[in-house]
């Protein structure tokens, strides 16, 4: 395991999110507390409808009506300062999304635009977030080119690019950008960058794939392209929302390996949302288990699999089919969140339910070093 630094990159504090629907108020998130440390892979596990995806959407601050964030803070480390994302305006968030935070979704085909080629779609991210850097590289190469030819001063082309860099919003620049071929070198630079990222994703023959449309790609390939789009600006946190659920096991193994390798190399963090405990065991450093809108257990992956403490985590681990054993299932079903059970939301399915569980929601308490559990069974200790 890589050494985990004790600094939080993302801190979600007491996040409450509700959906105001015609059937009633859905209490989707009920006080979520979550830390993503620097340079780690955190797995977020839970059954369907427990709020995993909503948590990841809230982190990107893309919750739309009828959903509403009622309470809480989402703090992201930004130049050694913690910034509350919920307090920021859209312009700031637009910069954050894609370059600091980015997200990979479950269904890559739905996420890719069918009428643009792979190259265009990856290029869009670059042009939006990395325009300045790219223009500078173009200028740099122009300057060295002229120096080698022994020319002094600057050409018309250089002046155009300088103008694009310095006064991007002026009227003249906008007119200049409309002139055909005026951005030729910039486009060339973008194309190089796209091919580079596609090569990093281990896509065979990236030149050809870059010119393909999404329908020409296989499922695994489409997911690689989506990951490429997410990682092209080197975000500090990648949120992966069940990226391998619809893929075959062999392709899944390839993608998991890819994500893990990229995370280790770029020293960024990954929030990996999944329902598959096998996947969690394979790639995560820490795990957070979620049930009906709140985190019930957080621990190191080794501790969680060796010593699960919350009754729900125990049941979840036992429901993994293993040969030679009878299938164990968790009795009952996930409660509806319109009128969730009072107190601990797991109490009516829990084998250890006590009187207090029906009345009071247990807080996350540290039972061992860095092992947090929200259960009244462990209320006595510490």
């Amino acid at each position: 395991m890589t050494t985990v630094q004790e600094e939080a990159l993302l801190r979600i504090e007491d996040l409450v999110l509700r959906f105001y629907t015609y059937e009633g108020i859905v209490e989707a998130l009920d006080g979520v507390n979550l830390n993503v440390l620097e340079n780690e892979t955190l797995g977020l596990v839970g059954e369907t409808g427990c709020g995993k995806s909503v948590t990841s959407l809230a982190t990107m601050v893309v919750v739309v009506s009828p959903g509403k964030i009622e309470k809480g803070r989402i703090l992201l480390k930004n130049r050694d300062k913690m910034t509350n994302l919920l307090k920021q305006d859209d312009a700031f968030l637009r910069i954050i999304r894609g370059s600091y935070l980015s997200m990979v979704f479950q269904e890559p085909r739905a996420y890719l635009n069918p009428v643009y080629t792979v190259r265009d779609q990856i290029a869009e991210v670059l042009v939006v977030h990395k325009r300045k850097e790219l223009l500078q590289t173009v200028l740099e190469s122009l300057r060295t080119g002229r120096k080698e030819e022994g020319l002094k001063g600057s050409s018309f082309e250089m002046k155009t690019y300088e103008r694009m860099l310095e006064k991007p919003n002026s009227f003249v620049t906008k007119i200049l950008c409309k002139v055909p071929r005026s951005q030729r070198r910039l486009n060339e630079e973008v194309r190089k960058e796209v091919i580079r990222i596609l090569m990093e994703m281990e896509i065979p023959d990236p030149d050809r794939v870059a010119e393909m449309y999404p329908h020409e790609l296989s499922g695994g390939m489409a997911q690689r392209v989506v990951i490429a789009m997410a990682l092209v600006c080197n975000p500090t946190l990648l949120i992966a929302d069940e990226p391998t659920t619809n893929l075959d096991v062999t392709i899944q193994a390839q993608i998991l390996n890819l994500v893990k390798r990229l995370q280790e190399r770029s020293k960024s963090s990954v929030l990996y949302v999944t329902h598959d405990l096998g996947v969690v065991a394979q790639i995560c450093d820490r795990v957070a288990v979620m049930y009906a809108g709140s985190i019930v257990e957080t621990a190191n992956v080794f501790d969680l699999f060796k010593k699960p403490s919350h009754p729900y985590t125990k049941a979840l681990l036992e429901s993994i089919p293993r040969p030679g054993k009878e299938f164990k299932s968790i009795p009952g079903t996930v409660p509806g969140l319109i009128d969730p059970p009072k107190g601990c939301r797991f109490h009516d399915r829990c084998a250890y339910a006590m009187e207090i569980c029906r009345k009071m929601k247990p807080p996350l308490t540290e039972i061992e070093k860095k092992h947090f559990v929200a259960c009244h069974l462990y209320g006595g200790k510490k």
Partner: protein
Amino acid sequence: MSSLLYLRGLKKYYPILGGILKRTVADVRAVDGVTFNIEKNECFGLVGESGCGKTTLGKTIIRLLNPNGGSAYFKPPPEVIEEIEKIEKSDPRSRRLRHLREQYDLAVFHGARLRFLRRKMQIVYQDPTTSLDPRMLVKDIVAEPLVAQGLSRGSETKKKIVEILEKVGLSETHLYRYPHEFSGGQRQRIAVARALVTQPEFIVLDEPTSSVDVSVRAQLLNLFQDLQKEFNLTYMFVSHDLSVVECISHRVAVMYLGKIVELAPTEEIFRNPLHPYAKALFASIPIPDPTKRKEQPPLLGEVPSPVNPPPGCRFNPRCPLTMDVCRKVEPKLIDVGHSHFVACHAVKSL
């Protein structure tokens, strides 16, 4: 034990139409010559990547799709199997074989005969939200096979439905509801009830647990096992979830691009897979144990197109053990002992 199904070189091709006249320009060889048998009262697992022809095979066996070749004998007596094998070797065009096929072969049945056999073979689909009609009440959904087959009428129907619903863990109170009122697990139970109501002998379970959660999955698997004991059912369990197959099946077949590449009893195949594809497939399962992490993905590349499969062994472009012979000759399924069958040139040479 006697065979319930005895497949001989079953084929299903989907035509690709092209040109102005919409003529067949090529075939998608979804199932390309599959030979195996399914014993009575067993659960036969079929695994493979998506697009390898698992579902097509399941549907072809129960004649929801018409095969393009080969035969599927339903409940042939052992002496008939012997006879078929003998005739196929000596004189595959004999009248006797034709006679036997007309008697036992599902692939040539038609009309009333096929209709009668439909009640003996049922299927449960992957996604109950799409396999149940959203405008029909549960009672109508479950009664439909009975009505279509003319098996019961009036109040008798209702009695049968309630009986079967109770068997799958639902009750009379659920009769007058629509599918959308149920959870995923319950919906799948309705689909199972519909399959069971005609008292079939053989059920194709086409990824029945892939659309539900872990905890519900365990409930459904228990249900399948209980029902199998109670009704003496034979299952063909199609899945890409290998851990589930390992727990529920008696024998497992691994499929790759329309061909069976390995077939063996579950324990044997999971402990000792011989075909390089099966090895890679089993090694790709994420093990829920953080102490057993894998460093390298066991298999690179993707499944080639079944329209134009690679010549020779279909796995040769991805196989680590490829030899010259693999590119030319297609390996046959051979017995390597312990009722373990493999189709690989490398294994033969061992």
